[in-house]
């Protein structure tokens, strides 16, 4: 099983004749994705690597029965491409495009919501449901079939984390990048909810970064609704306030959105935060063995989700770990160091006069 995309996913590529669109259409196809067509207005009737090109989304959906689209069109036209996909009856839109004005997305978001369409991104690498389908630009070579769900705001950092999991023998169900912009269609919470409901996902890795409060909201959600073990990583501890760190959404503004705040919020609900992406598998393995042990030992009446999670704080369980791998042991102090070294809130926005 998986989340959001699977074997039944039939993909249309919006902007298929462009440089990125044509390259990734072929990549997706060779990764086993059912790429049923593409759209570039004025290029209808052409073909890209054996994939038929249509003039409009409406025509493409009618001819192919596609249920998903992926957007590679330039930022100035990306919002319109999303509207077109919604209008054509597409149910899942993955928007890879980086650089779409936030004002455009503020209008797109209520529109997709109203029509029950799942929008992933923009400014995201897309997603892979291992062995089933890949939509977007993630390299298919780094994933391995398994039971870990990965969700991230980043691109290459996600690859780094996935690769670390794969090297450690911990395969994945679905790996998803939700995007680095301020206004995005699918949140951490949406993914956590889906992973919690997905039977084949046994553990979750969540990769956040500075800016906004999505990680804090995710922490609150985890406390209430997620029973599966979650390990996090947060990028941007060394980032200065007030500077945009590449992603439009990665900025500490008015003293909020710092890595320290996010790490504290996650630790508070029992989610360990790895000190380096390479330490994620170790931290996760230890947490999983601990959770398993506790689940076996806990009585059914006291089996509330929150109880399980509270007990999972590193401090309390340190003595209760039965089987810990060398890797997990090595990783653990690091996770703690990170908690301790968290900095004070930086500067608040100064007086304007």
């Amino acid at each position, binding site marked *: 099983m998986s989340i959001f995309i699977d074997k039944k996913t039939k993909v249309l590529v919006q902007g298929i004749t462009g440089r990125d669109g044509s*390259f*990734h259409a072929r*990549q997706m196809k060779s990764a086993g994705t059912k790429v049923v067509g593409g759209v570039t207005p004025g290029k209808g009737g052409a073909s890209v690597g054996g994939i038929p090109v249509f003039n409009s989304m409406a025509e493409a959906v009618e001819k192919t029965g596609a249920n998903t689209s992926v957007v590679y069109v330039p*930022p*100035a036209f990306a919002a319109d491409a999303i509207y077109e996909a919604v209008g054509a009856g597409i149910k899942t839109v993955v928007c890879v495009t980086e*650089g779409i*004005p*936030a*004002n455009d*997305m*503020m*209008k797109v978001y*209520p*529109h997709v919501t109203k029509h029950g369409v799942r929008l992933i991104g923009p400014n995201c690498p897309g997603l892979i449901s291992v062995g089933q389908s890949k939509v977007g*630009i993630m*390299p298919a*070579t*780094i994933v391995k079939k398994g039971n870990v769900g990965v969700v*991230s*705001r*980043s*691109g*290459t*950092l996600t*690859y*780094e984390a996935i*690769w670390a999991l794969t090297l450690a023998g911990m395969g994945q169900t679905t790996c998803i990048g939700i995007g*680095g912009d*301020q*206004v995005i269609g699918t949140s951490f919470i949406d993914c956590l909810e889906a992973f919690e409901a997905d039977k084949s996902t046994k553990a979750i890795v969540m*990769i956040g*970064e500075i*800016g*906004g*409060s999505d990680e804090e909201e995710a922490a609150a959600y985890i406390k209430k609704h997620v029973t599966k073990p979650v390990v996090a*990583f947060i*990028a*941007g501890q*060394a*980032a*200065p306030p007030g*500077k*945009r*760190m*590449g*992603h*439009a*959404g*990665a900025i500490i503004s008015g*003293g909020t959105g710092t*890595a320290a705040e996010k790490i504290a919020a996650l630790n508070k609900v029992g989610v360990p935060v790895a000190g*380096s*992406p*390479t330490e994620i598998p170790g931290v996760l393995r230890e947490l999983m063995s601990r959770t398993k042990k506790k689940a076996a030992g806990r009585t059914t009446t006291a089996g509330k989700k929150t109880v399980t999670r509270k007990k999972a704080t590193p401090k309390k369980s340190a003595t209760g770990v039965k089987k810990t791998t060398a890797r997990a042991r090595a990783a653990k102090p690091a996770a703690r160091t990170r908690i301790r070294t968290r900095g004070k809130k930086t500067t*608040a*926005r*100064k*007086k*304007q*006069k």
Partner: protein
Amino acid sequence: MKVHEYQAKEIFADAGIPVPPGEMATTPAEAFEIASGLNRAVMVKSQVHVGGRGKAGGIKYAENAEAANVLAQTILGMDIKGLTVKKVLVTAAEDITSESYVGIILDRATKRPVIMVSPAGGVDIEEVAAKTPEKIFKLAVDPVLGLRTYQARDLAFKLYHDIGQVRQAADIIMKLYDVFWKIDASLVEINPLITNTAAQVVAIDAKVNIDDNALYRQKQVEVMRDLDAEEPSEVQAREADLSYVKLDGSIGCMVNGAGLAMTTMDLVKRYGGEPANFLDIGGSSSPEKVIAALKIILGDPNVRSILINIFGGITRCDDVATGIVRAFKELKPAVPAVVRLTGTNEEEGIRILKSVNLPSADTLDNVVKKAIELAGKDA
């Protein structure tokens, strides 16, 4: 992108928001001339992209043009939080009877523009939010429907009792909301919005930030960019289409991807070093970009070692390696460097690097440790 107060006031004035008359000066003589033209008491306000100008002595009252001239001499060239004042705004002084706050931000949580008003203006709004949150009123506007007049009026009633002033403020809020959309702002702010002895509501300060993603369709705003007020290396990076932020450390970082670039910086700190910069070369592996990136890193005199960290996914490691080799041959850096290439075509990439004797590291953590070691003591 940030614009100066005098530019933000031009934008406001064009939109019909009342602002006191005034002009920008770069010399005391110009300041004198502007103040003479206004023929009344003025404020001389430093124009730098930083808050707390007043507290730093960068905003002063001048009774007449002679006084404005003298004050401009002190303020121009003044250092405010590391920034040199090169421009001042000379603007008519108002007789203030009350100070309020009006701001609009893009709110990430609601994914809507949120209007904030407070009768406690003239001070840092975050301070008001922390100490007296009951004095802040917020409205998340439906971006499709837009701001309705009654909503602006309701907000204005939170600021004033006099119906005349309520109407003026409601009109200002409506116009400010239009500005927010029209120029693709991520923030517009009036702090303070004042009432004067003539019972007029006037914006005596103005702050505008523009969404960088929208600059392609905001040419008339982009020309307002003050290149003088920015880090030269950051300007150079923007022109080369690189994401770069200058920091104070000694480890120069070149990474593909923003999240990984941040993580690389974090690890430099974690293992005892200090990053000299954030630099994301993006998904492209063009040698030109690698050369431009290396030039910027080498232009920073604090850099004592170079850390190159590439996770090849769609980007091919051999392509990046070719770029690195070309860049090193062309620029012949005197500082040591270490490269980590992983992912697509990794072996080929490492082989290419060997031709210029560049040391490589196998993992993320190891490349960081090696870079710190190369930088030597006190990295």
